[in-house]
């Protein structure tokens, strides 16, 4: 009974992980712009790897090796989001053509829009 439950859980986890990996790989090759690709790759090396490794843990049972796999998961979750952040920051830093590639919403534009909105409200009130 427990074996069947474990098998089903393992299949569910690794299947979900495979779905994430496949969508990540498709996204990396289908998207054209670096940041969109980064978005797809981030799914791949956080959720995809987490689900796959959890499936492996469930399949092998809770031994010393699965404790090591948990450490691997912690390491990957510490490092891969930071590397994604750095790649994104690099793209922002060196791309001169950023406005054409996407709509940039930073603090300045938001405040500018707010300033633009406030006088119209005042006019209507007046």
């Amino acid at each position, binding site marked *: 009974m427990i074996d069947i439950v474990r098998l089903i859980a393992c299949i569910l986890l690794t299947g979900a992980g495979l779905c994430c990996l496949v969508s990540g790989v498709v996204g990396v090759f289908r998207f054209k712009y670096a940041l969109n690709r980064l978005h797809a790759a981030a799914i791949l090396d956080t959720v995809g790897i987490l689900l796959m490794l959890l499936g492996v843990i469930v399949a092998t049972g809770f031994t010393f090796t699965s404790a090591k796999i948990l450490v691997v998961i912690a390491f990957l979750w*510490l*490092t891969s989001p*930071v590397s994604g*952040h*750095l790649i994104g*920051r*690099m793209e922002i*830093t*060196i791309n001169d053509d950023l406005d054409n590639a996407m709509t940039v919403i930073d603090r300045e534009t938001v405040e500018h829009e707010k300033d633009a909105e406030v006088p119209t409200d005042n006019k209507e009130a007046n």
Partner: protein
Amino acid sequence: MAKTRPDYESSLFARFLRWLQGGSTQLDDEMSHTMDDKASLSHSEADKIAQEHEAKYEARLAAMAEQEKNMYAHVHAWASNQGKGLSNWLYRILAVVICVGIIVLLVSTAAELPPYGSPDNPAHNEVAERYIEKGMQETGAVNIVAGMILDYRAFDTLGESNVLFIAAVTVLILLRMTTRPDGKPTTSQLEAECDDRMYEPKNDLILQHQASFLVPMILLFGIYGLMNGHIGPGGGFGGGAIMGAGLILYLNAFGFKKTERFFTFKTFSIVSVAALSFYAVSKAYSFFTGANHLPSIITPGTPGMLFSAGLIPYLNIAVGMVVCCTMYAFYTLFRKGDM
């Protein structure tokens, strides 16, 4: 390309002409202010002739420039019409010929290989048997691979470490910016620094927090791999690579100013050379005593203990230092051209 005007004026022919016209050479020019009118007259005549020669010379220069321009135009026309087609044709033919040649060579070699896993293979000889059966007893290393690469075949590993060191030195020769003798940075160094500041994200708070937690862990794991090479998985190359990666992460997070406190060019040279010479000297001692059947102070010890297996843990540390320094040097040299 050819002589320019000042060269021409001091040339042998011009001086000869001027001497012929009235004895006014270049030395005499300086004294001509104090001379009488006659001398200055001859001087102006010499000037006139010199100007004529100059005009001729410039006309010749212009003709040469025109000729060169025509030649370049001709070459360009040829390259864009026939040359392109010829090189394309040659490229395709050569690509097919080389590919087919390599495929034939590799397939014929693979056909000659003995069947996989057969007990009569040449690889299954008494050498491998001895490594597996007596390796632990003779070297004292539980990890048979460590015993093989650092004891039975230590000379080979010395060559590998030297290859790494030579690669690092070659990159140094090619990429390191020259410093001025007084120690101040040159303009090319300042430009590289400016580029680096512009293109590399610095003082990233997220990365710094992550690195301050991860770098000690990575370095500790690398040291564990180094020290543990003769007992379990690990060893000089793996541990050194992990330590180098930790150093590179630290450099990325905190910048060159922080790493320069403990790792400069001097550190690199001292650590690499000390590790390699320690390796060479200790292995020379071990080879010498072994070959002459002399008593040696190096004993295998108890297998499985930390200080056992003779020289292997120390050689692992030496190899690891070389690998770590080489990786870090590659990274810094390719990024900024300096350490």
